[in-house]
């Protein structure tokens, strides 16, 4: 469905000095800097996938999304999405996609979202019956029946984001690009948005998601593409991403008695909450979990234990650290 081959984007920027003299000089002569935002990345995405793009600020995620949506022309490379080259066949192509930008609203500030929906109906040339059916269904799913009639400026961020999603889905797109869709939202609003994405994905909509919220990735994406400095560092499932660093577990442990020393081979104490409560990182390749439990039981008695996969933040930190680019 999406084929990206050696995609590159280089921006030209002008270097200006910080002091008065160099600022004055820059009026007549400026030094040009070429910034390689995306350095020849390649990947394929199949229909119905939900792919998460992650990476630090300035990694090249948004630039990639902008090229895939036809907003930016690449410096080099090829993209084929459902038979279109986004920046060349823009008008025909964008009729098949939707986009939600967490920091750029498609709603119109002074008028109710429902009026903006009707504007989209005209722009996307959606037949009246189909439009009403989709609108009603989406409005019901996101529980915004009354909200869509209020001026946008009176809505909370979470309520606006729900309406942004309706705007992006009214024309029943095959692919939806989400650029930080949960930014600034509270836990409940995030959960609603995530459930909505899951629901639409089940119906066959392909989602490409960029985010800094790793919970979004863990809860939504089956596949992760990790970008840093314009290069793809990793492209596989979350499970593989976590295993990339070895079979490590994150353990929260409570003991019956005080446990003074935790010097067990393969176990690293990440946080000592009290003398009876610890957060631990356990390397499964060096020690089995049952052996670890046995040892703790003998020393202080296990009262409670919670074993989890490594948090993705930790995985990413280590991966970026390996590339020495962060």
């Amino acid at each position, binding site marked *: 469905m999406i084929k990206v081959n050696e995609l590159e984007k280089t921006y030209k920027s002008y270097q200006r000095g910080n002091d008065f003299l160099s600022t004055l000089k820059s009026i007549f002569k400026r030094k040009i800097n070429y910034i390689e935002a995306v350095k020849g990345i390649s990947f394929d995405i199949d229909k119905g996938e939900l792919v998460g793009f992650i990476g630090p600020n*300035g990694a090249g995620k948004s630039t990639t999304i902008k090229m895939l949506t036809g907003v930016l022309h690449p410096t080099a490379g090829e993209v084929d999405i459902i038979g279109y080259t986004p920046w060349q066949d823009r*008008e025909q192509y964008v009729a098949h996609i939707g986009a939600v930008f967490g920091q750029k*609203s498609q709603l119109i500030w*002074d*008028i109710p979202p429902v009026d*903006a929906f009707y504007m989209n*109906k*005209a*722009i996307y040339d959606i037949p009246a019956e189909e439009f009403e059916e989709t609108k009603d269904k989406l409005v019901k799913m996101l529980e915004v029946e009354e909200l869509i009639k209020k001026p946008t400026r009176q809505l909370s961020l979470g309520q606006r984001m729900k309406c942004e999603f309706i705007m992006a889905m009214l024309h029943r797109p095959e692919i939806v690009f989400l650029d930080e869709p949960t930014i600034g939202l509270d836990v409940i609003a995030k959960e609603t948005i995530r459930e909505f994405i899951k629901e639409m994905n089940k119906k066959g909509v392909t989602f490409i998601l960029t985010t800094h919220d790793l919970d979004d990735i863990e809860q939504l994406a089956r596949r992760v593409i990790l970008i840093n400095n314009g290069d793809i560092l990793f492209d596989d499932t979350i499970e593989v991403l976590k295993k990339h660093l070895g079979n490590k577990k994150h353990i929260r442990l409570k003991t019956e008695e005080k446990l003074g020393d935790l010097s067990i081979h393969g176990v690293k104490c990440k946080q000592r909450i009290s003398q009876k409560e610890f957060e631990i990182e356990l390397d499964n390749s060096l020690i089995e979990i049952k052996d670890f439990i046995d040892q703790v039981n003998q020393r202080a008695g296990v009262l409670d234990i919670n074993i989890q996969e490594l948090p993705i933040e930790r995985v990413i930190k280590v991966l970026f650290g390996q590339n020495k680019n962060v």
Partner: protein
Amino acid sequence: MIHYLRIFLSGMKVALASRMAYRGDFIIRIVVMFFGDLLFPMITTLIYRAGASFPGWSLPEVLLIQGIFMVVKGISFPFFFGMIEEILDRVREGTFDLMLIRPCSVLYLSIVSSFNLEYVGSFLGGIILLSYALLHIEINITLVTGLLFLLLFFFSMLILLSFTLIMSGTLFKWVGNSRVYEIFDAVTKFCLYPRSIYSEAFQNLISYVFPLAMIAYFPAASLLERLDRGVIYSLVVCLLFFLISRAFWYRMLKQYTSAGG
């Protein structure tokens, strides 16, 4: 075609509803536009009252040119001039991205989404001035002069659209350059007076290179039966000027780099 008409009507409705959210501000702006644009006709009247004049042109004839300029502005500005401000803001904030993900001509969408009814003040002022001038000039408007006037009036709006395209096009590259308005104000001042008051070289420049004379002078001259054959060349230049400015706009659009995400 029907698709584009629907977008147009929907855009008008949304723009009007947005503007009506601040009715007080809207009415004040219309009044300001009305009186602001009458400043030049008032200065012209003072010049004539003081005994001076533009050689070969009576006061009502000069007011006819200025009235036509205001009417052209009052019609064309609400429909497309607002796109300069719209593009200026959207390019600076990076929200022009949202225009590019819509399945229709991005130029058309930029025009439609920037509809601004405030300039109706200019239009009303222009109609009043035009009526006053026509009542004080002895002219016989025939079907031919009427049709010729309408043709030249259309080209007048085409030139204003061309300038709008050039000015808004530069904003894709020179982000946030709000001085473009001043360039336009300075340039269009030459449209407010009879062409014959300028040197011959300048007359040729505003007729056949940058056809500013088409904005108000040529339509007024058609009603006053003062047109010369040069208007035909000027019409061709206008058409070329429009095509070049449209190509320029699209070329500059390719320079759009969005804003950081």
